[in-house]
């Protein structure tokens, strides 16, 4: 374990969440992306989770690689480093949060995130194809934000994956973890050395995206 991660692990009580994604199990079906859209009711142009599919090699030696990409919830978040108003910050449970009521929408964090995990909410709507879209919004971070066209909508601010914080606080896993058809995603407490995620993260297949960035992601991939 890295020193910074040890420090992060010892800070505060309670779990510090992490996700492990087994790329050998991922079939690139994008169920996670769809589930996330449904759970978080994200508007057009905002996708907290995407699956990056790449074809490699030339025929007949070809392979396809799928990399699901949620927010990495980094222990050294580049986004929180640059935010001028501390609207984005690290919570004790390991999640990098955005305060939608403080964000001014300058989008500096979008340029700073090495994973492209942050999106700007331009205020667009699925109202044309989904009648109920405007009626209610996901209670992200456990905050009731009323209807999409209401005053408390996070329009004009930056948004990203929250590790489904609102689900965690009622004892449920993030939506993408629950619905993954290949069980490619694991979720748990990285501070607990006996948790499944800790054991998988310590294994030889574990790696992070863009390790040279020094961001120490809390989403760990298995080769």
């Amino acid at each position, binding site marked *: 374990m890295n020193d910074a991660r040890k420090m992060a692990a010892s800070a505060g009580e309670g779990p510090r969440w992490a996700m492990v994604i087994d790329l050998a199990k991922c079939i690139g079906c994008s169920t996670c992306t769809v589930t996330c859209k449904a759970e978080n009711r994200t508007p057009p142009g905002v996708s907290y989770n995407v699956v990056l599919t790449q074809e490699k090699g030339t025929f007949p030696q070809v392979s396809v690689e799928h990399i699901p990409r949620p927010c990495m919830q980094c222990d050294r978040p580049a986004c929180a480093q640059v935010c001028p108003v501390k609207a984005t910050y690290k919570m004790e449970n390991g999640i990098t949060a955005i305060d939608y009521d403080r964000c001014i929408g300058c989008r500096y964090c979008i*340029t700073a995130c090495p994973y492209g995990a942050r999106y700007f909410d331009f205020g667009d709507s699925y109202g044309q194809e989904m009648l109920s879209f405007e009626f209610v919004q996901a209670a992200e971070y456990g905050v009731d934000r009323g209807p999409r066209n209401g005053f408390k909508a996070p329009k004009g601010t930056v948004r990203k994956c929250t590790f489904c914080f609102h689900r965690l606080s009622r004892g449920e896993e993030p939506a993408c973890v629950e619905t993954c058809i290949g069980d490619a995603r694991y979720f748990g407490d990285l501070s607990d050395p006996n948790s499944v995620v800790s054991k998988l993260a310590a294994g030889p297949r574990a790696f992070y995206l863009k390790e040279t960035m020094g961001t120490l992601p809390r989403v760990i991939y298995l080769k």
Partner: protein
Amino acid sequence: MVAIISMVLALTFILLDIGRMDRFWHALVYGNITSVLAYEVRFYVVYLILLAAELWFAIRHDLVIAAQGTGLKASVARFLKFGSTDTSEKGKEKDRRWLKILGAIGIPIAIFGVHGGTGLLFAVVKARAYWNTALFPVVFVLSALVSGTALVTAIYIIKTKVTGKQLDLSLVRSLAGWMILFLMIDVGLQFFEWIVGFYGLQEDALAALYFQLQGANAWVFWLVQMGIGVAVPVCLYAVKSTRNSPTAMLIAALAVVAGILGVRFNIVLPALVHPLLPGLPEGQYYPTLLEWTASVGVIALGMMLYTIAVRVLPIDEA
């Protein structure tokens, strides 16, 4: 005065760009010790106040004199002199001392805080290889000197033409000379930065270079930046007959300002279009009609403010 209005315009552009204009005050009320942008916002405000103070000391003597007259100019002057009545030589001497003190504070703030700091905003973003160099803030300081001298030169020539006053040709020539010198250093430093990026063989850094040199928007680099922004002014300055012509120097200065627009385009875009991870969508951007018209509007606002300021303040007398 030009500096104050330029700062106001720059902040207006940012105000229009942020997602929540209603929360602009958050930028001053809330802060973040690790955020360069949090410091920059404060530097811009401090610099704006400092420029206003400098302007006041520069025109205080003339304000007091103008306040004795009648009409709009006198009423504005009566308010803006803030109770000052001193018209003696000693008072002028005091003003000059204040200007020296403010300048001594202002120049480092301008170099390291405002212009270098703005470059630092980009330089600290490790996720974007094209910005992530220590030379970036230095290039920003240089291009501020380039665009600053160009704008001042252009405004000086236009103003003397409009008011029909005697043009000081040696002043124009020396301003243009500084402009060309700064421009050459700016281009040279930019060249160093590119060479280092090229040798790094990092995919995203190379993509940023290719985007500028041979992408769909390559005309911005070759035509606007190198053609209008560098070749035109350098040629106009190199030839003796055009160097001594105020009109030619006006064209050279305006060409430099136009070139700087291309520079800004190619600072922001090349770093942002290339996807951060393979499989993410390629970025696409061209200013929308709304953005063009809003930009023209903001620049027009600046021209209007300047015209009003020249009419009601005793600036030319100073």
